[in-house]
């Protein structure tokens, strides 16, 4: 290993093989870098793609950004978590940056009277897991982008309306109203007979 390289340092009970790979990448071993990409790219791609659907045109740039950011941060990786989880954490931040950016650009829909929230439908009674996954994907794809983004951010990334408001510079009330309308649209499509 070259002396000018600051290698990651192991913590007790660390993920040794992940740490060894990280150390080799930081030491600028080209084949370790290839292994790093080969092992983790499918999972990162799947995750980012699922969170950006159907705007797939942004997926590849974000995946590349995740790897480059990870590469810069690898000297700080201590093996306390699996490398995959660590990378997915970076990917999550990138996805949230994308949501924030899009929510800043897309104008909020006109204010309207909220007729909901009402009672949500019963998931179990409606569909099995595979069909539910397909249906949810289809509905999210069919929604206007601003509704899709807030639903993904709130429910699949588990952020509160306050956190989303803080990160977008909008008021919590505006985000709550947006979420209410997004839920309303989602629910209407979920209950529509053609949503499968």
């Amino acid at each position: 290993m070259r002396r000018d390289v600051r290698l990651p340092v192991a913590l007790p009970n660390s993920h040794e093989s992940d740490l060894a790979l990280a150390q080799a990448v930081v030491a600028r071993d080209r084949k370790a870098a290839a292994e790093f990409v080969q092992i983790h790219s499918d999972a990162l791609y799947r995750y980012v793609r699922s969170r950006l659907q159907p705007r797939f045109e942004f997926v590849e740039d974000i995946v590349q950004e995740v790897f480059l950011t990870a590469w810069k941060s690898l000297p700080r990786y201590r093996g306390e978590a699996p490398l995959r989880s660590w990378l997915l954490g970076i990917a999550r931040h990138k996805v949230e940056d994308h949501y924030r950016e899009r929510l800043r650009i897309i104008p909020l829909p006109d204010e309207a009277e909220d007729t909901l929230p009402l009672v949500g439908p019963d998931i179990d009674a409606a569909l099995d897991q595979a069909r539910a996954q397909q249906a949810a994907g289809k509905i999210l794809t069919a929604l206007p982008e601003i509704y899709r983004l807030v639903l993904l951010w709130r429910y699949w990334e588990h952020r509160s309306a306050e956190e989303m408001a803080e990160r977008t510079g909008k008021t919590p009330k505006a985000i709550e109203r947006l979420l209410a309308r997004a839920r309303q649209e989602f629910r209407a499509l979920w209950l529509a007979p053609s949503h499968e």
Partner: protein
Amino acid sequence: MNEDLWLEQLAETIPLEESVLAPSCLKSRVYSALILAAESEGPLLPLTETKQAGRGLCVFEHLVQILPSPDAVQSFQYCKVCHARVLGERVENAPIYWPCCPYSEFQNR
């Protein structure tokens, strides 16, 4: 159950991730970008050390590695001038079959 809770439960049970693979072109471009970034920080690990670490070399790298050559030659990224990189970055499932070539190994075959 209110709508908020209903959607929380729905998201809990539905992961959204489909079983897709990253395109080979993307893997190739990511790898090239990482190597470019690594080179901007300093020379790559000499091929001899890569081999000593148990990682395979392609036929071209192997030729360079067995030559009596200084570190600068050993650290050069030969993929920069290799057709496999060009094909890998531009063609999905490119016909590259060199053993121990990253661009070949990125292909989803």
